[in-house]
């Protein structure tokens, strides 16, 4: 395994080369001048440090460590189990081995085995953008020769966000505890896990009406089981579900229904996250909005309505456009919603916070107007709508405005209250 950056490393000063060199030099000098006891004391410190250095160097050799993490994303409240496997592929026993797992600042996932970081660890954690309040740790003690140790580490998804394992490190060292080495984990084992927005019960009726006005198209064609175009003779490869049992009951030869091909109009959400910025970072309203949109996406998928999503640029992330016509899955939408965070607040010359309009990647949205179906522009309130260029460009013909608060002004646009799409008293 590779030795990593020693940003968190904490070893004793005794094992540093200058101190060891000084001890050796003074020890030899003391012996030369006949000071046996002093020479013995200095030599002891030197040998102690040397043994610690050699031991820790040998401890890190031929050590195999792997982490198996569950694929995909999770929802808040779910528990994740990471399977850890440490293999000491040498004869020398490994006295201690720690898996150091920083927790993201958002605390979207919290470990079961945790502790408060020590002072010397905090600077490294801050540098990495991890929490300085809590850190995950799993300890393996005494891994004997050619021994394999398997363990599990449980984490609990607490809130929406992206959980990255990039800062996970292994720590080991000598049995005296003087020197600590940090080892990088295999990159293939380090993944990102999305904690999706919490699912809530929603009423998707206003989106389903588009399916009833369906029209045929060239892409994403599907059969509408409610509209029978004709029948044809049964072939052995046909599904039994498609057999026309009425004809069969009349004693006629087996025939199967041929349904109408349709292209359902898809739904495309444009989330104006910046309109929630005045409420503060990770406001309840924003979280609730993302929960409702995520829940709608899941619910509409079940109803075979395809969903797309556009998000403006957020903290450290570029604008996102996911189009249903490109074959996007609901998981992609949920991932994008999980990763979205409001951009860093901006200040004017007087130190006052300003709220610039959202930065969407607009060109693909304009290009995809025909394939995207109807747009749903989601904002906090109608007060922020007049200066939204994208909304004006899309026009009221294909766009509905959904506001978290009760809409006061929508102009030509069809408006609806997003909060009301949530079924109260029966949260998922």
């Amino acid at each position, binding site marked *: 395994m590779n030795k990593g950056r020693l940003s968190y490393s904490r070893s004793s000063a005794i094992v540093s080369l200058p101190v060891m060199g000084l001890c050796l030099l003074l020890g030899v000098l003391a012996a030369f001048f006949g000071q046996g006891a002093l020479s013995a004391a200095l030599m002891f410190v030197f040998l102690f440090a040397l043994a610690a250095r050699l031991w820790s160097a040998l401890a890190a050799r031929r050590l195999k460590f792997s982490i198996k993490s569950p694929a995909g994303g999770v929802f808040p409240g779910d528990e994740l189990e990471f399977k850890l496997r440490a293999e000491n592929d040498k004869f020398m026993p490994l006295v201690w081995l720690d898996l150091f797992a920083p927790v993201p600042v958002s605390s979207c996932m919290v470990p079961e085995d945790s502790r408060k970081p020590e002072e010397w660890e905090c600077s490294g954690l801050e540098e990495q953008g991890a929490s300085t309040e809590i850190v995950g740790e799993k300890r393996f003690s005494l891994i*004997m*020769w050619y*021994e394999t140790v398997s363990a599990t580490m449980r984490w609990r998804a607490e809130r929406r966000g992206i959980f990255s394992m990039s800062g996970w490190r292994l720590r080991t060292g000598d049995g005296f505890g003087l020197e600590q080495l940090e080892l990088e984990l295999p990159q293939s084992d380090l993944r990102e896990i999305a904690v999706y927005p919490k699912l809530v019960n929603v009423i998707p009726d206003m989106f389903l009406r588009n399916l009833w006005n369906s029209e045929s198209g060239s892409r994403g064609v599907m059969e509408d089981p409610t509209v029978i175009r004709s029948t044809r003779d049964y072939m052995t490869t046909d599904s039994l579900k498609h057999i026309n049992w009425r004809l069969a009951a009349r004693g006629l030869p087996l025939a199967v229904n041929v349904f109408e091909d349709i292209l359902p109009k898809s739904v495309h959400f444009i989330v104006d996250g910046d309109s929630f910025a005045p409420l503060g970072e990770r406001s309840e309203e924003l979280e609730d909005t993302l929960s409702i949109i995520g829940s709608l996406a899941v619910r509409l998928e079940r109803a075979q309505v395809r969903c797309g999503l556009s998000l403006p640029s957020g903290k450290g992330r570029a604008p996102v456009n996911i189009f249903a016509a490109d074959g996007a899955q609901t998981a992609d939408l949920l991932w994008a919603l999980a990763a979205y965070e409001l951009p860093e607040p901006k200040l004017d010359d007087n130190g006052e916070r300003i709220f610039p309009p959202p930065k969407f990647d607009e060109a693909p949205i304009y290009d995809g107007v025909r394939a995207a179906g109807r747009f749903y522009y989601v904002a906090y309130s109608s007060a922020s709508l007049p200066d939204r260029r994208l909304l004006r460009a899309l026009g009221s013909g294909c766009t509905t405005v959904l506001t978290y608060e009760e809409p006061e002004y929508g102009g030509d646009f069809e408006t609806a209250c997003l909060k009301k799409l949530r079924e109260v008293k029966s949260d998922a």
Partner: protein
Amino acid sequence: MPDGRAFPTFAAQLATACAVCSFVQIMGMSSGGELGLYPLILIPYAAAAYGIDRLFLRRERSMRALALLNTAMGLAIFAACFALDACGDLASTLFTALFCLGLTVRAASLCLRRMELRSMLLTMELCLFLLVAQVGFGAASGMGVAAYAPIMAGAAASILGLVIYRTEGSLGARGWAFTAAAFAGIFALLWLLVSFAAAPAGHGIVAIWNAAVAAVKSVFSLIYRFLAYLISLLPEAEYGEAEMETPEGIVMEELPETETSPIIAGILLAIIAALLIYGLVRLLIRLGRINIGGRKISAHSRTKRRRAALGPALARLFASWKKALRLRVKLWQRRSTPEGLLCILIRKCRLTPWHKRPGETPRLFLTRLADSAEDDAELHSALLRLIPAVDAAVYSPGGRGVDFDGAAAVRRRISSAVRRRFARDSLASAFAKIRHK
């Protein structure tokens, strides 16, 4: 304290008290005064203060109650020190008060918050530094060996505390045995080093030889006495009424006259050895059940272990050595062929910045190496010539086993070239840092 790191914390507190004691001893020696029991009393006090505070905080208490308790303890130890004539003048009174206060406050604070690794390391470093300082000072002033006992105990406590802190007390008998063996190794090496370094030429070897001979003689003497005693207990069949000799009657000079069968002696020796091994194993198993300090392992520990027994482990070790040896022999046999030279280069550059990167082809690796060695024209050209030869050897079936004419030069020069380049790069980066500052 929020977690169960009680033993390392206790060890650190004890080590601090030992360090204070040592410091007072050094101060006392420099002033030429007699210290008596005064600094020694701080050691049990520090341990007791920590224990009392922990017991006191087992139930919920107010900070005022804790402060009052510690004030009372601090005043009591100060009064005890005063009674032991620790406060001769104003300066010594002030220092005594400071030490008492410091140890009391530390005991209380260690009970309130979790001990950090940095504190453990600092305590151990302080103890080792004071050990060296006191030994040095003692050597100059003719101090007795007994005076080093507190700081040696402190150093031992701090090291033990650190070991338990790192392993969270779940080391087990095997782990402790391994750590103890490492310490034994260090002390053995220390003894050898000091004997050699401190003694005039040749004297060290004589001393070691004499000590070894004396040790072996004493061990054999003990075994012989024990066997003789056991044999004397056996009744003699031919002389049924003969009286048994008492053990007290055995004299060293008379021993060779005792008739002993070598077979019986061998059997007895084997039985004793087997019993000793059995006892040792039982003791280790018993010790393994005792956990010192640290967090208790939860009952539903989800850790699974797949251990290898010592025999198969040794077999694997020997097999790996055999494999490594075979590889080296093979490499030596093919040291002049392009493919062998490539392997040698990879091995030589393994621990340097020019190590072969994952996924790098031989051609890319050799090109990078040739660029790095451009100062050495001969090596540079040899490496460039090596590239097509390696390509031929690696990718064409008939290209193997042909000697490369510049192999010896490449082997000879590559290490020095890498070292030279490394030194130059290190110096350049150091200068750049200094210039940047």
